[in-house]
């Protein structure tokens, strides 16, 4: 030894800059150590990432698809929408020697090039539909007069003209009232929102898969390194020092698993979009969910770190210094 004994042993006086540099060096060393540990058992670690990736891909893909479907629904609503006209009671009565005003209007509308389809529902058919729909047949059969008006439904060629068409038709003297019917679309919208909520819940339930997979890897890593940890404890390493490379291992596993999930989701969403477009449905993959997916990467990293921390705290309590 080239020095004389100092009563304080190994205590040191280090400047702030040196301490900071040493701290950065330590984190670099811990990160490299974590990478070495991952590379040492590449197959096992890749399988762990794959488990995380696969368990997250299915619900994320479905969620993404539903979100895209909801975004596309605005266009569909206009395509599926129609103007429903309720005519005055007098419009259904025939004038002398001619047809009734309802049929005249129906024919005029059929000839209108702006309209894709025109349907007329006479009061008798309306009553029949009502009876089937609400099972009021006994009540309705007792009615002496049919109170229903003639209804005409028109589907425009250009969905964006729906509102203008409604105003124009409502102004006609035969028409008592006209309204845009988008009930079917609203129901579909409601269904999609419910499915989204259900899937989000499912995703929350699957998120622990990441934690469990990372925890299991950390547990195996600790079991493999019991001697090293005992030695580190003996030479004065704090629990934080011993844990740090394991936290990086957990973070990298979480990041890798989430990255796999993102890649698989993008592939699946792309394949689904293609398949849907082949059968005539445009399912646009908007940029918002893609950005959300990318934001999942740091979340996966942080979740991995948290899972590793929890696993190492529990496991290290059982390891005693040599």
């Amino acid at each position, binding site marked *: 030894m080239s020095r004389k*004994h100092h009563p304080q042993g*190994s205590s040191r006086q280090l400047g702030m800059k040196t301490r900071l540099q040493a701290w950065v060096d330590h984190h670099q060393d811990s990160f490299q150590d974590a990478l070495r540990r991952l590379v040492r058992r590449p197959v096992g670690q890749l399988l762990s990432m794959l488990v995380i990736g696969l368990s997250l891909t299915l619900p994320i893909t479905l969620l993404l698809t539903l979100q895209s479907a909801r975004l596309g629904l605005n266009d569909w609503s206009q395509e599926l929408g129609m103007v429903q006209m309720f005519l005055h009671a007098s419009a259904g009565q025939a004038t002398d020697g001619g047809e009734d005003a309802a049929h005249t209007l129906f024919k005029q509308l059929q000839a209108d090039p702006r309209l894709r389809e025109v349907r007329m529902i006479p009061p008798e058919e309306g009553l029949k539909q009502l009876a089937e729909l609400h099972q009021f047949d006994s009540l309705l059969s007792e009615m002496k007069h049919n109170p229903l008006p003639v209804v005409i439904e028109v589907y425009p060629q250009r969905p964006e003209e729906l509102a203008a068409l409604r105003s124009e038709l409502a102004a006609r003297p035969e028409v008592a009232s006209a309204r845009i019917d988008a009930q079917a679309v609203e129901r579909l919208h409601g269904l999609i929102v419910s499915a989204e909520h259900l899937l989000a819940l499912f995703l929350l339930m699957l998120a622990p898969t990441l934690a469990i997979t990372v925890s299991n890897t950390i547990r195996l890593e600790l079991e493999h390194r019991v001697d090293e940890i005992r030695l580190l404890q*003996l030479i*004065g390493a704090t629990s934080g020092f011993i844990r740090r490379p394991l936290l990086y291992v957990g973070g990298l596993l979480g990041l890798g698993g989430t990255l796999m999930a993102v890649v698989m989701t993008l592939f699946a969403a792309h394949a689904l979009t293609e398949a849907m477009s082949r059968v005539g449905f445009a399912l646009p993959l908007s940029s918002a969910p893609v950005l959300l997916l990318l934001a999942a990467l740091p979340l996966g990293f942080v979740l991995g770190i948290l899972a590793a921390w929890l696993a190492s705290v529990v496991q290290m309590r059982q390891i005693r210094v*040599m």
Partner: protein
Amino acid sequence: MIAFERVSKTYPSGQVALQDVSFHLPAGRLAFLTGPSGSGKSSLLRLIPLIDRPSSGKVLINGTDIGRVGAWRIPRLRRHIGVIFQNPHLLNEWSVFDNIALPLRVQHYPREETVRRVRAALDKVGLVDRESARPLELSGGEQQRVNIARALVARPSIILADEPTGNLDPELSFEIMRLFMQFNAAGVTMLIATHALDLIDAFDAPRLLLRDGRLTTEGL
């Protein structure tokens, strides 16, 4: 400084390892701890870096009653103590350099300082040209010298050695003891447990003789 004041140690199994042991090893002194196998040498050494706690009595390190040291302060206390076992406990996946650097990494030494100190320690134990080797590529004697270099690299104020020459031939054992004498001459307090009486006869140092957990002789 190491002081034991009426220390006893009984393991949970009921086995009594130490009974009413008292001694005082001043700072910068070297002492041999001798006694037959199972006499309590290792049990005594394990109390100093708080691997175990005494059942009764006080252990003082550099004036601090370590029985009162909280769990969070234990790592810092251990940094003042270098421990050398009969089995070197080297990490076989790491190089000789990295094994020796471990205590410096634990204490967050800057890289340049780490390199300087590890090379100095390697020079001290005569292994300068082996820094890149893996422990399994070394002989038993070389492994023990790496173990010693690791114990001294952070310049602890105390070095404890438990049968450090147990697996070595007499010539190498003598060389290791001479190395310990050099460290002690530089001011390190040393407590060396051994039952190789013929070896320690060659060195002038006080002896603590343990028999059935009792300290029967003290030359301090």
